[in-house]
């Protein structure tokens, strides 16, 4: 892990400047002698015990574009100030200029490691505003649950992989990346894209499972427990891993409540708060799974919670795929049947390549004028959502992901705000890391698993 001494503020002729903390040294390369000389010159004027170090936005171990400004007393961190905003994309404002359906493609890129969760929470909010929650087809809900749990495993794999990478253990990352590749293959098969799929749409999902998908899922379910066991055998009792993560980054229940922290951090304190159990959505109450908790409140406990959650997710995926494979009623759509809301066409291979399915084109051009009108209105204008505001929340791999959607009766979101768990959880890093060693900052940040796309949106 590298630390760089570089500072902010305009430089003077010798590269020093006065900042709010005292003298600031800009190290640009080849000038270490000048820094030493400046230090010696200014030694009588300032407190040389505390060193302010910038772990800048470009850093291998800060889990994304996160800037940490550390005040160090030797190796101990006396103050840690995180600076975010380096990935601010204006997603929420962009959504105000697109239709409700197009908003899915934007919100999916907020927390880019859990795109299905972003899409689902937004679509649940839109469906709640429309008042059509009960009319979303059951198959769509099962598909949403299955995709969410697959995404949960993929996200936890990345979390554990980058945890190891940031601690310097590259093997962990390779194991985790291998598993994630399999899940991305499944995503590609079902949604068409490896990441940022615009799969969940208001009213259902965009398309049904293709041929061979259930077999691929079964094969995945057969292999994954062994791979998880492999990963566990590498980490669970690894003395180096334990030494770096046990009793590190302690945040107990009071701290979590005060700081609004949810997700594996909260479950690592012993409180089994999981929105899938307490405020279920998409039919989660009908699935049989546990909520794993630990009570050590440290980084190691959170790692155990995450890997246990992967096991539980496998159970849910198995139950969901059993339901999807079961006997199907004659009319089993995956998109709401209300033609004024449900997205009309599906992509399919036709004679001239990939596009709207030829059946649908034949229907709207030859058979039904209403269908043509609905298609036209939905694609150009979008559907209108009655006035009001809602807040829906799902349990994303990082915590409670909420969507506050406000409608003014039009075809565009008046305001769509994503309450991202990483944004809230990242505030806790100061509480976790201050007073500890600088090397403990890395597991602290990694155990929060912040995704900067969600933090900054």
């Amino acid at each position: 892990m590298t630390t760089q001494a570089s500072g902010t503020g305009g430089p003077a002729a010798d590269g020093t400047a006065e900042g709010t903390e005292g003298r600031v040294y800009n190290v640009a390369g080849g000038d270490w002698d000048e820094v030493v000389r400046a230090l010696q010159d200014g030694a009588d004027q300032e407190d040389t015990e505390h060193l302010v170090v910038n772990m800048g936005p470009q850093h291998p171990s800060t889990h994304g574009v996160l800037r940490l400004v550390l005040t160090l007393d030797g190796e101990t961190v006396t103050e840690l100030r995180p600076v975010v905003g380096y990935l601010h994309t204006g997603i929420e404002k962009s959504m105000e200029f697109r239709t409700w359906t197009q908003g899915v493609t934007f919100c999916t890129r907020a927390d880019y490691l859990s795109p299905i969760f972003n899409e689902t929470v937004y679509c649940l909010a839109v469906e709640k505003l429309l008042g059509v929650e009960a009319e979303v087809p059951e198959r769509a809900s099962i598909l949403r649950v299955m995709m969410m749990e697959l995404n949960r495993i993929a996200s936890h794999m990345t979390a554990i992989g980058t945890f190891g990478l940031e601690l310097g253990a590259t093997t962990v990352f390779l194991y985790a990346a291998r598993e994630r590749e399999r899940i991305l293959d499944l995503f590609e098969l079902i949604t068409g894209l490896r990441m940022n799929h615009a799969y969940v749409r208001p009213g259902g999902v965009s398309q049904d499972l293709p041929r061979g998908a259930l077999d691929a899922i079964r094969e995945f379910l057969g292999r994954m427990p062994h791979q998880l066991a492999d990963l566990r055998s590498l980490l669970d009792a690894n003395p180096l891993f334990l030494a770096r993560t046990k009793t590190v980054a302690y945040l107990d229940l009071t701290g979590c409540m005060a700081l609004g922290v949810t997700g594996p951090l909260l479950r690592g304190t012993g409180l089994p708060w999981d929105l899938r159990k307490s405020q279920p959505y998409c039919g989660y109450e009908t699935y049989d799974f546990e909520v794993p908790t630990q009570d050590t409140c440290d980084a190691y406990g959170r790692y155990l919670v995450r890997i246990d959650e992967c096991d539980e997710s496998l159970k849910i995926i198995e139950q969901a795929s059993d339901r999807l494979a079961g006997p199907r009623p004659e009319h089993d759509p995956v998109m709401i049947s209300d033609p004024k809301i449900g997205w009309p066409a599906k992509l399919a291979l036709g004679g001239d390549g990939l596009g709207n399915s030829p059946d649908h084109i034949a229907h709207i051009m030859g058979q039904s004028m209403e269908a043509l009108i609905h298609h036209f209105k939905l694609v150009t204008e979008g559907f209108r959502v009655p006035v009001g505001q809602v807040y829906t929340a799902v349990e994303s791999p990082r915590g409670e992901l909420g969507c506050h959607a406000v409608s003014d009766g039009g075809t565009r979101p008046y305001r769509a705000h994503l309450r991202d768990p990483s944004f809230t959880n990242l505030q806790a890093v100061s509480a976790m890391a201050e007073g500890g060693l600088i090397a403990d900052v890395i597991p602290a940040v990694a155990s929060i698993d912040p995704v900067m796309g969600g933090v900054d949106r």
Partner: protein
Amino acid sequence: MSENSPPHGAEPDEAALAGQERLSEQVVRTGMFGTQTTGDTSGYGGLQVRRGPPPFTPRPYGSYFDEVADALSTRLEADGGGFDEAVERVIVDRGELTLHVRREHLVAVARLLRDEPSLAFELCGGVSGVHYLGDVGRELHAVYHLVSITHNRRLRLEVSVPDADPHVPSVVSVYPTCNWHERETWDFFGIVFDGHPALTRIEMPDDWKGHPQRKDYPLGGIPVEYRGATVPPPDERRSYT
């Protein structure tokens, strides 16, 4: 629309009164198809949709909302204030309870909601802002989402402040999690949270001017050239609504 002259010189009937009130409401949307100039020969271009009166829900609210309102009301009265003084309006919509709180009482109400055992809203999901540009005098709304883990309940608090005086007391002393959320709301909307320990920009660069998510702030896109054609940025494209 037309004034029904009441018979016998009695009071104007309710329909006429309601109609007059609606006419005085502010126009939210005009036209039907987005285009105002040429191309619209349907006559729907003259359509004017007006904002309705501010909604409120009368008692009983249903579900657990009555319990929450009663508990809050009891405590507020015991503290010598009263429910109606602190809470402007209560809205129950789509299964959610929204309390519109007056800004002077926000911190007290939040503290009650957190500490009172029958309420116990321990977790605050954060605060975000909404900018209602046309709502003169109440343009900026700060919205707080609270979760009670003990009772498994949700609640929304909403505070409305005018553009001219966008100050809201900070709830960081009650819910420290709102620290960054209030900074973000200041950054994007310009709502000043009095009492916040360090209200600075968090997402935008420190020297940014303006508050980007306000409705009067442009989206800021640029026109895109592609093979000889130019596509205007999203906020300047033709709107179909």
